[in-house]
């Protein structure tokens, strides 16, 4: 359950990263629709965290709980920061921030998957 969800999160965050990269090239600031996209990714990660929590409570835990939950907490914090930034910085550089945020989410998700698989 965590595996497929992780792949969905990676896919969604990668699409959003590509969208942001396109905006960087086109010299455009983040638009609201991208923030809704970010909200979808964030929602998927919340679902994933809830699923992982249920699985852990049922005894099918991850081998490194400290690192695993640390990554989940950090991962959940990143996109809200990028969204706040999009309101403050109304230049193409907000798109760079969103791109960095999405790539960070993808990287953390990849690491989460590695830890979960053991």
């Amino acid at each position: 359950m965590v595996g497929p969800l992780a792949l969905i999160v990676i896919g969604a965050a990668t699409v959003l990263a590509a969208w942001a990269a396109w905006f960087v090239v086109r010299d455009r600031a983040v638009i609201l629709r991208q923030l809704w996209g970010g909200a979808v990714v964030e929602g998927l990660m919340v679902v994933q965290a809830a699923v992982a929590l249920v699985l852990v409570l049922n005894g099918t835990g991850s081998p490194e709980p400290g690192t695993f939950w640390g990554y989940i907490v950090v991962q959940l914090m990143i996109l809200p920061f990028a969204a706040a930034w999009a309101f403050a910085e109304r230049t193409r550089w907000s798109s760079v921030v969103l791109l960095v945020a999405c790539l960070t989410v993808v990287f953390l998700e990849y690491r989460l998957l590695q830890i979960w698989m053991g």
Partner: protein
Amino acid sequence: MGIKLPEQTAPAPGSTSSGPGRALVAVYGVFALAATARAGFQIATKLGEAPLAYLLSGLSAVVYVVATVALAKGSPRARRVAWAAVLVELVGVLAVGALSLLDASDFPDETVWSGFGAGYGYVPLVLPFLGIAWLWHTRPRGPSTD
């Protein structure tokens, strides 16, 4: 929905935290967050296993937090702090990177700077150079300075 983003504008020159600087602060912020979470966990749970590596991990977290805040503030005093932070960061990543290769037993890939940041796509190695370049690029220019 009632939410609306402000109109797009042109970047304002001369500040460490606007335009490209904002992207740089964001990257520093990510590393501040990642290094703090990692070091906090290491120091709280297993400091005795590899004290040197975990304390250096803690140092890297402090450096990233200080650099993030200083670059985001960008006042003359904050700029000096930012210079110090990025220079410590540069020395740190080079020293820890070299140490981790020479003495692998004490550094089981446990800090952001191990292997010159190989575990983080070598971003920790590139970041101090970007920080230095950006502080240099945004340095105050006028008859009374430089």
